[in-house]
């Protein structure tokens, strides 16, 4: 089973929940940190890194000897990444989506593709947990190819946990697609509710079952709980605000180590997730009200 942990709002506790869920399990487990812009899970899981590989994307390279400056490449490109002037076309690699359209469009076979590194995937182990994360190079705009490269490591081993980035758009979609279950971590505040509603929209558009974890559950108001109730979204875990958890978090110590009594609750969470991800549950529409 693959569980993705997302949120909408940043800072609600995705990594906290993902890491504690991972540490509470005894099944073979793969942890993927998909927040490739700001990967933090390694700060808590402290994996021994065993290997790494660059994430490379294809960008066009024009052979000036063959180019006739016909402009076909420029017309084919929907991203203004290759611009044809009177002489050899100019390439803007940071705008390129690596679609290959310019290569196909060139009547003179003057364009080939070269590789450009935009990030890195690192693989390792933390105790019995297999770990991998992606890191986007600072200055690069596109997180999605790094997230796709990370999820290629997605070999089914009992349980895969994907720690998604904050937000609701394409990086989050790339991180959560194809998972069996999405857990949205929120906080009981107006910002938390607002962003949760957007995140729910994203998850539903992908047709995935979902559940909610309310973190710092006693710190705001009741509107998140009320919203989940109205929408038929199961609240699978509530974690009260706890200075000990916050302090441990600030030092890179997982919640489940700061408060060992949480272990049982995360074990229960895993059971609930398995139930909700099951095909029978999906057919009944449990947890995925439309």
């Amino acid at each position, binding site marked *: 089973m693959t569980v993705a942990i997302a949120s909408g709002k940043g800072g609600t506790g995705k990594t906290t929940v993902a890491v504690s869920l991972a540490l509470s399990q005894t099944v073979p487990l793969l942890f993927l940190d998909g927040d490739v812009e*700001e990967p933090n899970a390694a*700060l808590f899981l402290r994996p021994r890194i065993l290997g790494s590989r660059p994430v490379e994307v294809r960008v066009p390279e024009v052979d000036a000897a063959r180019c006739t400056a016909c402009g076909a490449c420029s017309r084919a490109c929907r991203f203004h990444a290759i611009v044809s002037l009177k002489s050899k076309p100019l390439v803007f690699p940071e705008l390129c989506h690596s679609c290959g*359209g310019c290569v196909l469009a060139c009547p003179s076979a003057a364009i080939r593709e070269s590789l450009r590194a935009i990030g890195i995937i690192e693989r390792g182990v933390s105790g019995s947990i297999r770990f991998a994360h992606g890191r986007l190079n600072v200055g690069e705009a596109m997180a999605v190819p790094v997230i796709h490269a990370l999820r290629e490591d997605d070999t089914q081993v009992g349980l895969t946990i994907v720690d998604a980035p904050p937000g609701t758009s394409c990086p989050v979609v790339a991180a959560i697609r194809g998972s069996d279950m999405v857990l949205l971590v929120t906080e009981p505040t*107006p910002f938390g509710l607002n*962003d949760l509603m957007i995140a729910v929209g994203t998850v539903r558009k992908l047709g995935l079952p979902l559940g909610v974890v309310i973190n710092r559950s006693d710190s705001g108001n009741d509107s998140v709980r009320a919203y989940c109730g109205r929408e038929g979204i199961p609240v699978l875990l509530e974690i009260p605000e706890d200075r000990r958890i916050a302090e441990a978090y600030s030092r890179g110590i997982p919640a489940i180590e700061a408060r060992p009594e949480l272990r049982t609750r995360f074990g229960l969470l895993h059971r609930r997730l398995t139930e909700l991800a099951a095909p029978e549950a999906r057919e009944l529409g449990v947890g995925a009200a439309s």
Partner: protein
Amino acid sequence: MNVREMVVVSGKGGTGKTSLVGSFAVLTQSAVLADCDVDAADLHLLLSPAVQRRVEFRSGHTAAIATGRCTGCGRCLELCRFGAIRASVPSRETASAPQKPGFSVDPVACEGCGVCVDHCAAGAIDFPERLSGEWFVSETRCGPLVHARLGIAAENSGKLVSTVRRQARDLAQAGHRALILVDGPPGIGCPVIASITGATSVLAVTEPTISGEHDLLRVLELCRHFDIEAAVCVNKWDLNPEASARIEEAARVAGALLVGRIPYDPTVTRAQIQARAVVEIGGPAAAATRKVWDAWLAVAS
């Protein structure tokens, strides 16, 4: 007129960007406000905006296969690099009406590159423009606010961010306001880059945690990459004073200017629930926020 653009980012999510921008907006009263966290915009929740203009954001295209014209050759599936073409197995075959394989586009996966459109021999693929969201110009008690909502699971958030900033700049010129105050997104990717390029000054709000420090250093590196001056303030500093001091030192070494610290204060959530900025309620965080604003204003040149 020389318009200053001051942008608040964080690297890490949840450090308090929007809460701070809400307070800064109240304190200055003379800025054009821009919410560039278009994925998950929250600033409007503090400012009770009255929407004056609402504009559709159309960006990019999505391929759509017209099944009537499709010959089932499968060239689109061969060429698509984004896994956006699905082959559908025919549901029934009868002697009189054998079904050819059909193909369809997954609109969420579709990158809008147009390769399938251009190379379909039967011209069977349409390529309509994508409605990717909308943006708004609103009136608030602190001045005009430009904000947006990106469509669900949409792409092109960077373009929408750029649109919001352009509108804010137009409003500033038209309204003779010399300051644009931007609530930025978390992370370091395309929406953040679109929020900070060309800004006068960036304030990175961080928290005294190992994650906060890690993420701050990446966003500061991003600012250096684009040659933009950065200021730093530590929010909720008293949750870990030792970590706060360490982060401030790391920020200084990274070339950022320190503009103050804000204590943890439950008033922040209380204010948010009341749809108010913290400085409109009062308390320790409010007092510290005023000082941070004054300090940032002084260094943003």
